C-alpha cells in the first residue's frame, strides 16, 4: 500500500504547469487534493512518473460570477465550496451534493475540479454538474477550450482531456430568475459518506402558481457516466409535479441506465431502485421549493 516512486513538481504558475504537461517524458498527472489519486497510487492502480501539484495556484481556486453564471476554479477545495454563500444561493444543486461527498477530512483536501476530472460514475459533484448542464474549460500550451461537461465525461474514469490538457474551470449556468428553486441529492450507500451505490440529483423551479417551469434531473452510479433524465424533465414541465406525475415520469430514466454488478449492488438492484430514488430526490427538491425558508 505504498505509491511507486515518482517525481514531484510544484509549479509557480498555471503557465508553468501547462509547460510541464506538454513536455515529453514520464506520464505526468495533475494533483491538487489527491483524495482519489493518492489511494489509486497506493493501490498501484495509478503509477504516474511525475506529479504536478497545482494546489497552491491562486488562479485556479475560488468561486465567482462570470460567463452568465457561476465559475468554479478547478482547484477550489470542496469544504470551501460547501461554505460558499454564492454557491448556496446560485448553484443550489451543487451545494446540495457537497455534503454527500466523502467525509469532512476528504472534503478539506479534495477539489471540485479533481472530482470532475476523476470522472467516477457515482461521484456526486459530477452528477450535480451534469444535471446542471455545466461546461468545463480546459487549458494547454495550445490554448484554452471549452466544452459541455457531457462531452468531457466520456466514460467511467475517462475524460476527453488530451494528455497535455488540464481542467481549469467548471462553468455552471445561472439559476432561472423569478422561480422558487429547490434542489436535493439523495443516495443509496452502505453508510453515510461511503461511495454511493446510486445517487440522484434533482432541481426544480416553480412559478407563483406552483407550476414546474425548470427541471434538472440526473442519476449516477447506474451507467458509466451519470445520465440526465431529459424525458422525465420534459414530461413534468408545465405540471404541478404531484406525486403520481413524479413517480410516472421518473420511470422514464430506466431505459437510459446501463447498470452493472459489483460488490456493492447488483445490476438489477440498481435498475429497480434508480427511478424511485430520483423520484424521492425530486420530491425533496419540490418540498424545498414550496417552503424556501427551510
Amino acid at each position, binding site marked *: 500500500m505504498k505509491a511507486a516512486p515518482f517525481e514531484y513538481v510544484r509549479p509557480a504558475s498555471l503557465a508553468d504547469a501547462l509547460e510541464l504537461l506538454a513536455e515529453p517524458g514520464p506520464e505526468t498527472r495533475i494533483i491538487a487534493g489527491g483524495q482519489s489519486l493518492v489511494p489509486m497510487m497506493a493501490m498501484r492502480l495509478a503509477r504516474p512518473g511525475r506529479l504536478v501539484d497545482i494546489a497552491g495556484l491562486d488562479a485556479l481556486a475560488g468561486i465567482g460570477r462570470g460567463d452568465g453564471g457561476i465559475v468554479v476554479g478547478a482547484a477550489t477545495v470542496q469544504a470551501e465550496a460547501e461554505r460558499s454563500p454564492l454557491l448556496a444561493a446560485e448553484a443550489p444543486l451543487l451545494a446540495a451534493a457537497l455534503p454527500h461527498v466523502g*467525509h469532512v*477530512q476528504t472534503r478539506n483536501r479534495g477539489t471540485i475540479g479533481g472530482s470532475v476530472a476523476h470522472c467516477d460514475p457515482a461521484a456526486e459533484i459530477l452528477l450535480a454538474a451534469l444535471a446542471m448542464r455545466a461546461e468545463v474549460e480546459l487549458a494547454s500550451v495550445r490554448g484554452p477550450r471549452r466544452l459541455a461537461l457531457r462531452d468531457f465525461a466520456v466514460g467511467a474514469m475517462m475524460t476527453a482531456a488530451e494528455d497535455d490538457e488540464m481542467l481549469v474551470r467548471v462553468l455552471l449556468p445561472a439559476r432561472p430568475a423569478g422561480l422558487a428553486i429547490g434542489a436535493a441529492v439523495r443516495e443509496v450507500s452502505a453508510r453515510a459518506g461511503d461511495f454511493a451505490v446510486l445517487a440522484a440529483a434533482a432541481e426544480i423551479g416553480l412559478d407563483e402558481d406552483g407550476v414546474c417551469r425548470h427541471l434538472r434531473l440526473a442519476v449516477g452510479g447506474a451507467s458509466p457516466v451519470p445520465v440526465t433524465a431529459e424525458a422525465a424533465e420534459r414530461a413534468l414541465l408545465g405540471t404541478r409535479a404531484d406525486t403520481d406525475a413524479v413517480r410516472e415520469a421518473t420511470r422514464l430514466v430506466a431505459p437510459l441506465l446501463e447498470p452493472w454488478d459489483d460488490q456493492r449492488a447488483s445490476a438489477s438492484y440498481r435498475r429497480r431502485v434508480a427511478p424511485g430514488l430520483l423520484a424521492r430526490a425530486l420530491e425533496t427538491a419540490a418540498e424545498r421549493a414550496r417552503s424556501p425558508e427551510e
Partner: protein
Amino acid sequence: MPVPVTISVNGRAVSDTVEPRVTLVDFLRDRLGLTGTHVGCEQGVCGACSVLLDGVPVRSCLLFAVQAGNRSVTTVEGLDDAILLDAFEETHAMQCGYCTPGMLIAARGLLSDTPDPSEDDIREAISGTLCRCTGYVQIVEAIALAATRLRQDERHG
C-alpha cells in the same frame, strides 16, 4: 529522488529531505517518531491517521509529505486540549485506542468551528473515522461533554 521539505509540526519547523512518495503519516511516524498518529488502511477509509493541516482535519495517508511543505500540521501529540482528553477518559470513549487519535483530531476540528454541536453534527464529524470496537456512543458522549465544558470555560475564563 529525495526533495527538501519544511513543515511546521506541532509548532516546530521541521526541515528534512524526503522521497516524494512518502506519505505524511509515514513521515510523522518513521522520521519524526511521532507515533501518536496511527496508520490503518493507507487508502483514506479508516481515518485513524487524521491530523490537522492548517487547523482542519485531513487524512495524513492521503497526503504526501512534500504536499505539506510550508504548511502547519498538528498531530495528536500537539493537541494541547485537556478538556477534550479528560472528556474521553471520563466517558470511557476509548477501548483499544486504535481510532482515538483520529477521533480526537475530528473532535477538535468540529469544536473549532461548531462550539455547540448537535448530536447529528458530532456523528457527521466522526463519520469518516472508524472505531473497530464500535464504541461510538461513548465517543459521541465525550465530544458533547467536551463541548459543554469548553463553552463553560469560555464564559468563565
